[in-house]
């Protein structure tokens, strides 16, 4: 998903003896294949991942890893396994999260079935990978805040691609740290033309659609091209390593909800209130169609935004969403924020 294949590939290529095949870039064809073999009313991430699986198998993979998740997504892997089997593919599918729980011993056992694994070495590389994800997310946060104001077109993207390339080849923990500092510095050197108080938009919503640019029609780039500073909280570092703690903390402080609502719904509700209090110009909520936890969160989120009079817009992305329709709504949203500012 997105650029996270770099750390994942790094990890697997160092701890296993398997040949790692790059998952093909998501294209229109991926989603076509995925939709063809998926139940129609399942949420879009299922279709994207199934499409990617089939394309990867056709590229030669026979072991697939599925990340799983805290909602229906947690059961997807089983269903996808069955669909692939029915299609006649003979593969091993390893699920990292089963019914909402990550069980390292179970994953280790499953991996051991297909390859040799050295536990000590794995722990070392896991540590590096964790750090790499964190560094990537830090850099991405900086990019989101500044890419809309770049002086030279594509300078941020070019540098990021260069960074990802060197990250994929780092030699160890200290090398990673060195590279990160080097690139962070280079990013800060990139020329930007940022006003003192630019329009600030935060993006909340369902994790897959937020993190996979193809699934949200490159929404962040579209916003950046309008000179907007973008904030988002959902990234892999957050989901894997900080979420459980932070959600507990947020739920304690927040009065809108008492209980967890599955996946990221409760985070997004708490976040929305924080964002409103911080005085963001607008909030964009995105999800894939039929995402149940977020559907539950939406009425609460719009109520909070109405209280603070902060504009919010909801987008629901499906395999067959009209791009023009999204653009029209987005343009209008931007106009609205600008008009509010100038009054």
């Amino acid at each position, binding site marked *: 998903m997105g650029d996270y294949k770099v750390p994942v590939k790094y990890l697997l290529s160092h701890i296993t003896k398997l040949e790692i095949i790059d998952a*093909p*870039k998501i*294209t*229109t*064809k*991926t989603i076509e294949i995925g939709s063809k073999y998926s139940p129609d009313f399942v949420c879009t991430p299922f279709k994207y991942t199934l499409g990617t699986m089939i394309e990867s198998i056709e590229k030669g993979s026979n072991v697939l890893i599925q990340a799983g998740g805290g909602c229906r997504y947690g059961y997807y892997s089983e269903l996808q396994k069955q669909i692939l089997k029915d299609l006649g593919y003979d593969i091993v599918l390893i699920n990292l999260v089963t019914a909402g729980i990550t069980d390292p011993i179970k994953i280790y056992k499953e991996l051991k079935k297909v390859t040799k694994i050295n536990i000590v070495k794995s722990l070392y590389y896991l540590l590096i990978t964790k750090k790499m994800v964190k560094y990537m997310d830090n850099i991405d946060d900086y990019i989101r805040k500044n890419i809309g104001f770049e002086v030279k077109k594509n300078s941020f993207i070019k540098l990021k691609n260069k960074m990802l390339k060197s990250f994929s080849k780092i030699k160890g923990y200290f090398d990673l740290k060195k590279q990160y500092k080097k690139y962070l510095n280079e990013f800060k050197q990139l020329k930007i033309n940022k006003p003192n108080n630019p329009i600030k938009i935060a993006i909340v919503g369902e994790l897959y659609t937020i993190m996979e640019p193809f699934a949200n029609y490159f929404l962040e780039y579209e916003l950046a091209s309008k000179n907007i500073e973008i904030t988002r909280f959902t990234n892999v570092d957050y989901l894997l390593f900080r979420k459980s703690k932070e959600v507990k903390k947020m739920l304690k402080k927040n009065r809108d909800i008492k209980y967890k609502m599955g996946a990221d719904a409760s985070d997004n509700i708490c976040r929305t209130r924080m964002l409103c209090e911080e005085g963001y110009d607008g909030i964009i909520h995105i999800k894939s169609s039929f995402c149940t936890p977020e559907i539950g969160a939406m*009425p609460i989120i*719009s109520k909070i935004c109405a209280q603070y*009079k902060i*504009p919010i817009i909801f987008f*629901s992305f499906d395999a067959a969403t009209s791009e*023009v*329709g999204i*653009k*029209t*709504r987005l*343009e*209008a949203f931007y*106009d*609205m924020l600008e*008009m*509010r500012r100038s*009054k």
Partner: protein
Amino acid sequence: MNGYLGVDIGSISTKGVIIDENNKILVSEYIWTEGNPTEAVTKLIEILKSKLPNDLKIKGIGTTGSARKLIGLLLDANVVKNEITAHAIGTLSKYPNTKTILEIGGQDSKIILIEDGIIIDYAMNTLCAAGTGSFLSSQAKRLGIEVEDFGNYALKSKNPVKIAARCTVFAESDLVHKAQVGYLKEDIIAGLCRAVVLNYLNNVGKGKKIKGPIVFQGGVSKNKGVLKYFEETLNEKITVDKDSHLMGALGVAILSKNNKKDTIYNLNIKNIEFKTKGLECNGCANNCEILKIYKNKDLIDVWGSKCGKTFK
């Protein structure tokens, strides 16, 4: 004298207005798009030109509606704006106190909420065309009457039938059923108008606080039946301007006035050869549908590429 042209190219109809410095509409025209926006606009401009006072200089052009980008290129417009903003600006210039704009056009419908003269919220129908102009006109055809007479028929009815409003297909089968059972034509038409209102309020207006003063516009606002049921359901007086179908064009004309540069447009587009050419790029599995735009045989723009390939 200076004038500003606003063109609103919708799926069904193409609207054009020319305003003066005080946002007053000097001339306006309304024609069918008939699936060919460039031809429709060429025709529209010719008609507008024939009505223009001689000393008028066009100092700005704005485009809106679903073909705004294409026509913006054709006319070399200084403003290309989405229809939500354009409609709000147009309406506010005439009714500055408006709090809610209901708009139903040929293929889309929207609601815009306004507070103190700025948009605070809006929504647009997403996938379904139930309750829009094209649905009404196809049903008019089925019943064998002109869509323009729809409103008058509806007002005659004393007992509108209930028609399932959720979905175009269901509404149509319900309508056929009611007709075959023997209900009066005007009762069916009135039921249809009410179904449009309920569908709109349930889908587009869902969860929005509709406050007066309310303005109703777009092509369907000319339908007195729909207006009547809106007023009944919302229990508010609703304003329909005599130019309610031109608000988008008016709005974008105002925006082009506010954005004017020192160009004077001559509006001689009749002799411009404007062509588009579609192709499928086979560079990768995305198979993007590419549209090349030519003006007098010069390639002026390429749309549709997901990867940024230029095709020049």
